[in-house]
């Protein structure tokens, strides 16, 4: 059995965990991060993509609002290229209450959230699809954030500062030493889910940044952390409807945000308390609600093409649980009258402020900290608080440096909607497109495969947006599988030079990269990735029926990616997307006979994911 020794072990490869690893490494701690799947597989990769100005919470959750606006200002400097500076409108529709807007504007002023009221007519000129019946509009510094890119950029910054990041490493055991009252967490046992090998990591301190899974991680240390898990369902439209973030100017509720993120608009979201983070059925009433509410912001949205539905889960936490009483919002909660005996709390009313649990103080376990709650927008602050607490436990004084340290790639400036198209045009890469919808070129794909741990095609989706467009993998899945197969069979030339994660979404950068490789005829090892890229000799989890590694099986890659894409299309299967899916079905089931691939019993790390919650629930409410 392999062993590793580190000062700080971070559990969870989402925004918070990578942020913690970055912060800890910058402060000079030897740091290891483990993530059971790919980076951003959890909530980070399934949120709507909003960089909050804080305005959404000025009345309901002022603590969170202040955290958001401060972090908004910082992230614009540290993660510039991961952010599109869309600006945000808070619009008053005829259905919204009369006095909220004025109280909202006053609260923004009080909390130093920059808020300007603009004439509704000029907002409509900028966003012609907006509901023409809106009466007032406030503009705020909301923005869109690419959480995949941001997490990878943070991860690269963490690696450059010396951290080791281990995706596809699942926590199986936390080791405690000492007796009652003097217990210390001394390390963890981890399973490499690709090779099936076990790994022991001895650590001076463990930071639990597992988001919605934090309760499960804490339980391994014998500590109860009762998470309030708020499931949010989101829909993406086929193309952008607005270029500005649109919020209803009212108490936060369901379906009242539109976020333009890359090529789509995301409508979000519901907030349903769930017991478990893994099993997230998307129910018909949730879809209907998103569409009905979306129509109030952009009339006709419900009849526009919906690309996909998905669900993420908010890892909310409140130390004093909301046991049926009114929530702590300023105006008093309007809806929380449930009796305390039921699963009571509406997760909508739980605070979005971060929660730091020092288990030494709370539970008498040294060397263990949980950081949870919060928003994507506040991930850096969460990391800072967690590592501050770690310093305290470890008895050292080192100051946080993340707020003043830009991650690699910020020199590119804010990304903009057209950046991929403009690079494809400038470099004439039209014939290189593998995923035509999202403009993913062959060299982008190859760069990601060779330099980032790639176990399933879904990992490539998170890296370069493969299969995220209108056809949902219809035309790129078989192409990508073919390329992976060629790479594994050694038929493609390896990529040269240091792969800069900061440019992983740049067609031009990859093109120049692979052109350089061809010119010199040499490839070099990745200097960045601490884990070896899975190769042909890597083994699949021993429990799997098929002995061969998932990654070396093109059929399995194909099947599981198609299934994963299908999972998000099934709940919205009508109209134009149904027509698309019919074509995709003809391609894969009729032409390629993908329904009868010789991998029927094979398993990849993606298999359980799409199986766990692929069914749409028919319950009506």
């Amino acid at each position, binding site marked *: 059995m392999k062993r590793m020794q580190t000062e700080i072990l971070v559990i969870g490869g989402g925004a918070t965990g990578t942020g913690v690893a970055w912060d800890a490494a910058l402060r000079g701690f030897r740091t290891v991060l483990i993530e059971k799947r790919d980076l951003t597989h959890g909530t980070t990769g399934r949120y709507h993509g909003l960089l909050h100005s804080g305005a959404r919470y000025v009345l309901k959750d002022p603590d969170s609002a202040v955290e958001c606006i401060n972090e908004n200002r910082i992230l614009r400097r540290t993660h510039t290229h991961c952010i599109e500076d869309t600006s945000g409108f808070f619009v008053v529709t005829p259905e919204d209450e009369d006095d909220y807007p004025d109280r909202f504007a006053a609260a923004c002023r009080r909390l130093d959230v920059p808020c300007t009221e603009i004439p509704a007519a000029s907002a409509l000129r900028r966003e012609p699809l907006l509901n023409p019946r809106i009466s007032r509009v406030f503009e705020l510094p909301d923005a869109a954030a690419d959480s995949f890119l941001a997490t990878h950029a943070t991860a690269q910054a963490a690696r450059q500062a010396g951290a080791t990041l281990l995706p596809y490493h699942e926590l199986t055991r936390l080791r405690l030493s000492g007796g009652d009252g003097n217990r210390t967490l001394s390390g963890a046992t981890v399973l490499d889910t690709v090779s099936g090998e076990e790994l022991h990591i001895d650590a001076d301190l463990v930071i639990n940044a597992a988001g919605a899974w934090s309760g499960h991680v804490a339980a391994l240390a014998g500590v109860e952390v009762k998470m309030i898990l708020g499931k949010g369902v989101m829909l993406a439209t086929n193309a952008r409807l607005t270029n500005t973030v649109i919020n209803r100017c009212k108490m936060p509720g369901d379906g009242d945000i539109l976020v333009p993120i890359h090529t789509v608009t995301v409508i979000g979201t519901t907030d349903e308390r769930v017991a478990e983070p893994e099993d997230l059925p998307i129910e018909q009433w949730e879809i209907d609600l998103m569409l009905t509410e979306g129509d109030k912001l952009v009339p*006709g949205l419900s009849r526009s093409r919906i690309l996909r539905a998905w669900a993420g889960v908010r890892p909310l936490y409140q130390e004093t649980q909301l046991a049926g009483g009114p929530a702590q919002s300023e105006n008093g909660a309007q809806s929380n009258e449930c009796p305390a005996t039921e699963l009571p709390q509406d997760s909508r009313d739980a605070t979005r402020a971060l929660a730091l649990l020092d288990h030494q103080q709370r539970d008498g376990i040294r060397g263990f900290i949980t950081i949870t709650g919060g928003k994507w927008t506040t991930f850096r602050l969460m990391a800072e608080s967690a590592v501050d607490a770690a310093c305290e436990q470890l008895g050292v004084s080192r100051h946080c440096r993340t707020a003043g340290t830009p991650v690699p790639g910020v020199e590119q400036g804010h990304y903009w909607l*057209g950046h991929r198209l403009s690079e494809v045009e400038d470099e004439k890469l*039209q*014939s290189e497109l593998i995923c*035509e919808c999202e403009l993913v070129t062959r060299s982008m794909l190859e760069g990601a495969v060779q330099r980032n741990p790639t176990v399933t095609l879904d990992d490539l989706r998170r890296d370069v947006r493969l299969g995220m467009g*209108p056809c949902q993998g219809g035309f790129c899945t078989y192409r990508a599988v073919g390329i992976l197969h060629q790479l594994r069979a050694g038929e493609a030339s390896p990529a040269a030079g240091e792969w800069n994660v900061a440019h992983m979404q740049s067609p031009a950068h990859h093109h120049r990269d692979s052109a350089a490789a061809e010119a010199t005829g040499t490839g070099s090892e990745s200097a960045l990735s601490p884990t070896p890229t899975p190769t042909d000799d890597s083994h699949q989890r021993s429990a799997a029926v098929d002995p061969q590694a998932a990654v070396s099986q093109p059929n399995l890659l194909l099947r599981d990616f198609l299934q994963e894409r299908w999972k998000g299309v099934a709940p919205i299967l009508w109209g134009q997307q149904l027509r698309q899916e019919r074509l995709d079905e003809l391609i894969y089931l009729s032409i390629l006979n993908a329904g009868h691939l010789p991998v029927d019993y094979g398993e990849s790390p993606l298999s359980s994911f799409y199986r766990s919650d692929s069914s749409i629930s028919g319950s009506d409410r």
Partner: protein
Amino acid sequence: MQNTTVNSVGLSLNACIKCNICTSYCPVSEVTDSFPGPKYAAPQSERFRDFGHPYYEDDSGPISRPLTAGQMPDASVDYCSGCRVCNEVCPTGVRIAEINARARARIVAARGLSLRNRLLGRNELLGRIGSIAPGLANFALHNSISRKLAASLFGIAEKAPLPRWHHETLNRWLARTRTQRLRSDRKVVYFHGCATQYYEPFVGMAAILVLEHLGYEVIVPPQNCCGLPMLSNGEFSAAESYHRRNVARLAQYVNAGYPILGTSTSCTLTLKEEAPELLDLESDAGTRALKLATWDIFEWLRERLDQDQLPSDLRPLNRSDQPFILPYHAPCQLRAHRIGKPALDLLARIPGLDLRESQARCCGIAGTYGYKTEKYQIAMDVGRELFDYVASQADKSDLDSRGSVSFTACDSETCRWQLEHGTGLPSRHPVELLAAAYGLYDLQARRPAAGN
């Protein structure tokens, strides 16, 4: 811009299922790498463009965040010729050519318009200036030095088939022959278009003679350019003012219930569809009334044929021992009317005419596209399919080689010029053939027959 909805042209991209049928039919992307194809340029690239924003200033002033060159990410869309073959074959109804036209307009709004494209958009003005002294104008333009200069100064292709000014405009002919024109209670309005007015008035004469032969008085009211050349070159605000003037000038006739007939398929398409759609004028009452009143002349003649109102005195165009083989090309802009090929229905009535229908996708010229130096060769390569078709008709026509082809026919003027340029054969509008078959028109000399 408040009439923008989720059902607007731009968002018809939502219908795309990425099937690539348009790409496989596109005549332009087949011959050049400069145009990556209709799917790439329209539904695919449109998702990366800032399309939520208006593309030009509206009544209430400039938009608050003006477009910059950087916000128009792509340039290759300018290589779309606008032939609309993609629209024709799309199985799901994406308005591909319109999306491309709008994208081009946004490029123009952001980066400005070249002098060349501004000139090409102003063929009405050019026509009017040249007609002051057509002989001089033709001499000044149609010599190799001028063409070389035009190519190097403006980028107007040296070999491209520029038209010649006619010695008499249609209006002057109408004034000169005023006393001979038919008066009748049955009236139609003729929309001649700029090319007929200044370069080919004989096409208008043929049309007027045929309509009078049917017993209709032909009203030719003052009118101006339909705006299509400006729409194709991305100059939407200028196109809109031209269109609105036409709506105003034709309103009284439209309101009186007279049909507006045109011999130029692109002008009539603009009045019917292009201007209302591209300029977001679908809800403008005058625009809609004009749209509904406008007909392609053969579309209207076919109605007369169907109602047995067509004089039957059609005579053969050939001497009995000479077959008259006529390759006919239905131009893209006619196919976009979605009215079938009405000229064929009429020409088929001419005794002894051996009609050969081309299946070529496009002649290549696509309005002003083939006149641009960087696009001239593309246009010729696109047209190759049609030129070869015409050539093959002559070869196979008859074993004793009596059946040579002496004319081609096509409804659109620039397509005819391109056909002549590519095949070396004279090309005629179908209405010229019909007029000739009624004995009203001299097909060779292109003028009314003696006595008309």
